[in-house]
């Protein structure tokens, strides 16, 4: 009985201890908002990571190009500096249409593979452009480019995650039937299309050539129309620059634009709850042109957001 008389007090004491002990688990020193019904996540993405492009220059080095090659060589720093301004990670190699016995398609020069990480890349490119001219006239620019893209010939020039851009500088037109068959332009476009399919990245050709239909005449001489090169440039979305007044900065701008991989897919941190995903591009809500992929969760745009845009995804997290 005596023991019984003590129970209410002891019970109260132990209850207090238990209670306080339990309270230590709730010792949260915060003032956060408590979300009972849903967790809302807001993710922001910036489009366009550092674009990568492998640039193959094909130089017509027949004797008539002597002065033009000097002009292009003078502009070499403009070209590389412009690419640097565009924050492009580039590979650059150069082949000549006239090879003087050297194996066709071998990258010219020493070093023969230039990269944007090389400190003296501009000078090295200027030296590449100052090639010797030869008194021959093969003018098989497309065939030469085709050979140069063979990875067995020019190891490490092509990167699997880089766009491809071929630049042909010439004062004539292509004569690659011996290398590419009856339709060299078609064969080359097919090759670039297959490259795009394989890599998912742009593959195109730009040309510095004589305009159609009459060619041109400039300080460095005259040029015949480069009709076949222009056809390939048009078919692959490339850029045309007149050989009689070339501007390599303009060409670099075009290459940077063309090579820019526009992001279509943005991975999300979690699976959004059904119908909870809201998307903004540059602050404006958009409900079309995108879809939600489930595994892994990602936002896929069928209409690609513009270069440099900010994409925001806001969604509730779906319970596991």
């Amino acid at each position, binding site marked *: *009985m*005596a023991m019984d*008389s*003590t129970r209410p*007090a*002891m019970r*109260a*004491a132990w209850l*207090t*201890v238990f*209670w*306080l002990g*339990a*309270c*230590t*688990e*709730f*010792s*949260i*020193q*915060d003032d*956060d*908002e*408590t*979300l*009972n019904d849903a*967790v*809302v*996540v*807001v*993710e922001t993405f910036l489009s366009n990571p550092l674009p*990568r492009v492998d640039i193959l220059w094909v130089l017509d080095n027949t004797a008539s190009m002597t002065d033009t090659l000097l002009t292009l060589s003078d502009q070499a720093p403009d070209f590389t500096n412009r690419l640097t301004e565009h924050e492009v*990670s*580039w*590979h650059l190699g150069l082949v000549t249409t006239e090879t003087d016995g*050297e*194996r066709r398609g*071998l990258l010219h020069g*020493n*070093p*023969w*593979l230039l*990269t*944007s*990480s*090389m400190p003296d890349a501009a000078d090295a490119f200027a030296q590449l452009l100052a090639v010797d001219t030869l008194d021959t006239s093969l003018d098989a620019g497309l065939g030469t480019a085709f050979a140069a893209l063979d990875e067995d010939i020019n*190891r*490490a*020039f092509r*990167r*699997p995650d880089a766009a491809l851009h071929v630049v042909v500088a010439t004062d004539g037109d292509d004569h690659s039937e011996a290398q590419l068959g009856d339709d060299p332009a078609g064969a080359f476009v097919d090759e670039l299309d297959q490259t795009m399919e394989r890599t998912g990245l742009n593959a195109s050709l730009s040309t510095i050539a004589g305009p159609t239909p009459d060619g041109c005449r400039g300080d460095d001489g005259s040029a015949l129309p480069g009709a076949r090169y222009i056809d390939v440039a048009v078919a692959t979305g490339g850029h045309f620059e007149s050989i009689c007044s070339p501007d390599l900065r303009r060409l670099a701008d075009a290459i940077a634009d063309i090579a820019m991989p526009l992001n279509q897919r943005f991975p999300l*941190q*979690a699976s959004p709850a059904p119908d909870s995903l809201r998307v903004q591009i540059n602050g404006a809500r958009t409900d079309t042109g995108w879809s939600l992929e489930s595994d892994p969760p990602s936002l896929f745009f069928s209409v690609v957001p513009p270069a440099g845009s900010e994409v925001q995804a806001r969604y509730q*997290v779906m*319970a*596991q």
Partner: protein
Amino acid sequence: MMLLLLCAVAMGDPVESWDFEDGLNGFNPENSLQWEWGEFTGVESTESEGRSGWSTRLESHYRNDATDRLFFPTLNLSGLERPVLGLHHWYAIENGSMGDVGWVEANIDGLWMALEPVYGYPSYAGFNGFSINWRTDWFDLSGLPEHAELRLVFTSNLTISLPGWSIDEIGLHDGDPVPPFIESVTTLEDTHDVFGPYGIEVVAIDDLSAVETHLFWTENGGPTNSAALAPVDSNNFVGSIPGQASGTDLTWWVEATDGTNISVFPPDRKNHFRVALPAPDNLRSPDLVDTDRVAALQLELQWDAPAETFSVIRYNVQRDGETVATTEHTAAMVGLVDGPQRFEVIAVFDLGYMIDAGSPSESFDVRGAVPSADTITPADAWPGDQLRIDISGENLFLTDEATLQTGPDFTVESITVIDANHFRALITVQPEAAPGAHTFVIYTGIGAIPLTPRFTVSSEDLRPRIVAARPPTVRQGAHTTVFLELSHMSNPQSPIPTVELGEGIFVEDVRRRGTGLDVDLVVSHDAPLGEHQAHVDEGHRLLTGAKLWVQDGVTPTQSNCAHLNRNGPVGLWWLLTLIAVACRRVRSPQPIKE
């Protein structure tokens, strides 16, 4: 034996001469179909020749099917003991029995008769063929009238026209101005014979006197040596140059004298031959097929041994003239340098009495690209670190096949190739990694390339890490901000680090504040309870060290627990008070109910 044309020097001053520099000098062409006076255009003249003279047409080749004669002024030979005419001329005239030709005629008793040169015409008809150089031919005028009439005759057939015949100077001499004629001299070719001697035979004649001949030579451009050639008979002479060491370039010539005049062969005193042991053949590289370029630290060269009787004791491989490898075999690995370079191989022979080197092989030109990896960022770490290191260099030709060998103290988690000269590797430094410098090696398709800077593992316990998460606990469903305190101040210029807190915690924003990061986050309702390792990715270094606890989403009762907790010491005081009251009540005597 080499048949020679007349090569002569050192004649006495003429009695009379005509150099045609200022005019016709009294010479007259017959019909000007061929002979013209003026500046030479189709023939190379040197300082020893004048610029002007007579030529069978100056601006073009001579006419076909035309004959012209160039008449001398009348020569006064009176008082001359032995009049001799010297004709300094050059010609390129169609030769052959039916070809074109030029010759000298004298009027003897009203008849024009051909005059024969002292040593004869080059062909039976006269001057034709190619003189190559300017030359002097001599004509003995003894027996002609005191007032002699001479003329040069040039005639051409219907076909083939060449530059023709050019007359630079004509002199009338008295006595013996005519040097000996060196008719033939042995030709000496390059030879592998280092023992020698290198025999020489000379045939020399003179129009009046006995001839003496001498041989002169230099070795590799050194001082001139000479030796008298021994006469076999009055016109034939023999002699020799002694044996020479391999690699000796010899320049030699022969002089013949009649005591007054000297003839030299060759006129420029520059006959050459080289004494050299044979060269290795077919220098090549299996690394270079259909190309002249190679990206590598070293290059394998192969060659064929020289086919010669002497035994080869070694080969010296030279790059741009410097020996870079020595081997007894017909292959060697040689170091490359950047840029164009030229390789040659030289065999070294045991000749029995001496060791001597042979000629260099044909050169092998290479465009070299030597890979180097000279930048690693960051270059140091602490045991337990996880890092992204950037490695770059030149001529690395990186592809996705590239690997990084780091040794057992590191684990390479992944490699990402940025470009052909730059890649990024995610590596983990083992907790037990040995402090000190470690050498990393890159393996690419072009071989193993050691990283020049070494990677250092620090022994001090200063590893950058996350010191604490404040608050250390979040609840499921919370939308809050956690401060991650770092052990160091991160570079404010570098990009904002990214933060990961594990499954169910979503990071919405990260901001720098002081030595840490404010992390806005959302905790999902089903985020796993318990500890979540915090990861801060600074780009190159991945930091760990603190955990964030996730608790269940039950909303605490703010009126008791939170209040007590906020007043921690007060709550404890209340607890002790309650316990004390309870205990006092226990000790008090209580009536026992029956």
